[in-house]
């Protein structure tokens, strides 16, 4: 097929952004035109320029880089705000936001008592109406004991735990059929195929399909592969890479798609959230979306994944608007974010602004600029992640030796 296969490598460097933009184009021809333009390979001359640019920029900015490195590496003040101050500020800032209305505050606290009514090999029923299908349940590696870091200061863990500390809500970003009766067969088939894939990839603990059916996929005792690089903070401290510390609940849905989550999915999500919160004593502020926790350590920006970057039905889940919580990745580890991420959030999260304010305030207290303060925070994150990598490698080695 000599006519169509492109000779040059297509440009897939920004596919999530391209896909999001394409999904907003209703006209199929316009959409195809946009995609062909957006994925067309760069021209040769441009490629040369692109390749040259970093070297030239690097040379021009060598002085600035050296200065920045000196600031980061020099022994200097660490984030000095005490854990108590951080907790207080975090609480105050979150509570001060307009989203934390009295209405949402009333639904935030401890869920009602939820107990298991019956269990069979294939299902579980709970007192709040929750039904969980167990037929797709699969094991993964057991949940490891995970470190919790102090909200301020040290790069070593303040304590460890092995109980789920929170819930991360995901979207499957999978293909959706119109939610119509005549599409029933296709809806069922899509959900079934999705389950098989999720099971194979050990991606989430629970999946809620379009009909509101709750499927247990990875057993709660095990870790799911749902939030590799991620950061969140609760009143206990900071959690880094949440596969072990947080449970994953996925909705069969797409972020920004015309097909919204169904009322049945919301009702099932609420019942499941209540059950998990009650079972593990999970704080409402630790029930958050993947977009809120996802980070990219390579470029130190948040929002590597965008699922539920906007419109997560927190109220429907019986939770406060947690988009208002300042992002720990920003105020504790100095991550940044781009315009594309802000765009994905729809109406900009209050948590972004509050985290920025917190960084500025803390930098002022330290008597340094915000960029210097961010550099210190990033240094702490790098210390933590390299320590964890080293520990995990040693554990792997000792496990290998034992075998």
């Amino acid at each position, binding site marked *: *097929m*000599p*006519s*169509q*296969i*492109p000779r040059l490598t*297509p440009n*897939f460097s920004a*596919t*999530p952004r*391209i*896909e999001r933009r*394409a*999904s907003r184009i209703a*006209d*199929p*021809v*316009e*959409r*195809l*035109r946009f*995609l*062909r333009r*957006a*994925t067309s390979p760069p021209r040769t001359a441009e490629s040369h320029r692109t390749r040259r640019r970093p070297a030239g920029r690097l040379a021009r900015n060598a002085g600035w880089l050296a200065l920045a490195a000196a600031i980061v590496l020099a022994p200097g003040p660490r984030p000095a705000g005490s854990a108590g101050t951080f907790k207080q500020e975090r609480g105050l800032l979150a509570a001060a936001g307009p989203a934390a209305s009295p209405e949402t505050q009333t639904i935030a606290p401890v869920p009602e008592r939820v107990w298991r009514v019956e269990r069979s090999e294939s299902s579980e029923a709970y007192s709040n109406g929750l039904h969980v299908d167990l037929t797709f349940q699969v094991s993964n590696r057991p949940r490891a004991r995970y470190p919790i870091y102090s909200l301020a200061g040290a790069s070593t863990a303040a304590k460890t735990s092995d109980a789920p500390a929170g819930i991360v809500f995901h979207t*499957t*970003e*999978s*293909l*959706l059929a119109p939610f119509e009766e005549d599409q029933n067969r*296709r809806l069922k*088939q*899509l959900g079934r*195929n*999705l389950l098989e*894939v999720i099971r*194979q990839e050990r991606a989430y603990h629970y999946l809620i399909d379009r009909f509101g059916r709750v499927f247990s996929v990875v057993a709660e005792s095990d870790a799911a592969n749902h939030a590799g690089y991620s950061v969140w903070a609760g009143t206990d401290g900071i959690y880094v890479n949440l596969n072990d510390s947080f449970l994953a609940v996925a909705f069969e849905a797409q972020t920004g798609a015309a097909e919204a989550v169904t009322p049945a999915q919301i009702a099932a999500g609420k019942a499941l959230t209540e059950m998990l919160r009650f079972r593990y004593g999970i704080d409402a502020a630790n029930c958050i979306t993947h977009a809120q926790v996802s980070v990219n350590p390579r470029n130190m920006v948040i929002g590597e994944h965008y699922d539920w970057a906007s419109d997560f039905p927190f109220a429907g889940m019986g939770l406060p608007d947690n988009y208002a919580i300042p992002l720990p990745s920003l105020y504790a580890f100095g991550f940044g974010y781009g315009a594309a991420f802000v765009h994905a959030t729809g109406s900009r999260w209050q948590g972004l602004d509050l985290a920025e304010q917190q960084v500025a305030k803390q930098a002022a207290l330290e008597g340094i600029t915000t960029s210097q303060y961010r550099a210190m925070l990033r240094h702490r994150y790098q210390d933590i992640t390299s320590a964890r990598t080293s520990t995990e490698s040693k554990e792997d080695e000792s496990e290998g030796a034992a075998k």
Partner: protein
Amino acid sequence: MSQHQNSTAVGLDVGTSRIVIARRPEQDGSGDIQYHSQLNAFATIPYSKITAGVLEREHVPHTAIAGEIIVHGNESEKFAGLLDSEIRRPMSQGVLDPKEPESLRMMREILMSMLRLALPDQADCHKLCFTVPAAPLGAEGSLTYHEATVRQILGDLGYQAVAINEGLAVIYGELESSNYTGIGISCGGGLCNVCLAYLSVPVASFSIPKAGDFIDASAAAVTGERANRVRLSKEDSFHFNGFFADKMHQVIGVYYDDMIRSLVTALKDAFAKTKTIPQFQRPIPMVLSGGTTLPPGFRDRFEKLLWEQDFPISVSEIRMAQNPLHATAKGALVYAQSEL
């Protein structure tokens, strides 16, 4: 539809068995797509003035040459039946048949008569996108002759012709909802064409030379029937429900199964070997189209055999095209419109 699209875009599916034209009726490129379809076949009958006059009066597409009348398109089947002979085809296994002496002339005649009928009011230059097969697995020889010849015929008829792979056309016609990411399969007469695309970019494509004609010829050899009769039986009443009404259906079922197995194995092997497959962020859809996919139960049988394999790509769904006979032409039209 956007303002700058217009009806001068044409999609043309040049298949071994059928030729389908797709176009939108309105000048701005809007309105429901209209399809015109003809068998890509012809039959010869002895020349007589009376016969020629009747054919002319009845608007039956034909050409009179050297003591013969060649009837082409849909009517050729009837005449072949009347004369108890096989229809002849300009194409075999997805390309112009080198063994058919009239292939070039007939291809030109059929295309010309169809395009005149479908586009009577548009004499100016049109952007026309026509389908070409992918190279068969294991015989990645040049398809240049076929593509260049069809392009030349269309150029001579006044069209700006661009080619598109059949499988990719299925994707452009059916997979808008996944941003043109997925696997398009077209099972026609001569070939099963497959294409995997990511965000509209074709990543891998191939064809296998087992399709409808293979089933017809193989079943005909076993039953002693004419291939054309096997085809009619296959198209009229064959289905995959596990019970066969007669010997013919039982034999057709055997060769259908063989074809589907070959396709599924080829899919698995080809994608496992392709090194350029991107990391998909989610399972991708697969769409089946073409006349050979029409028997009831085909999709279920295909799906069952695919799941038996350790398929290297996560598939979200396997579904039939909205209109399996027209999906390729529709995709070619969408591509032609996007080129305007």
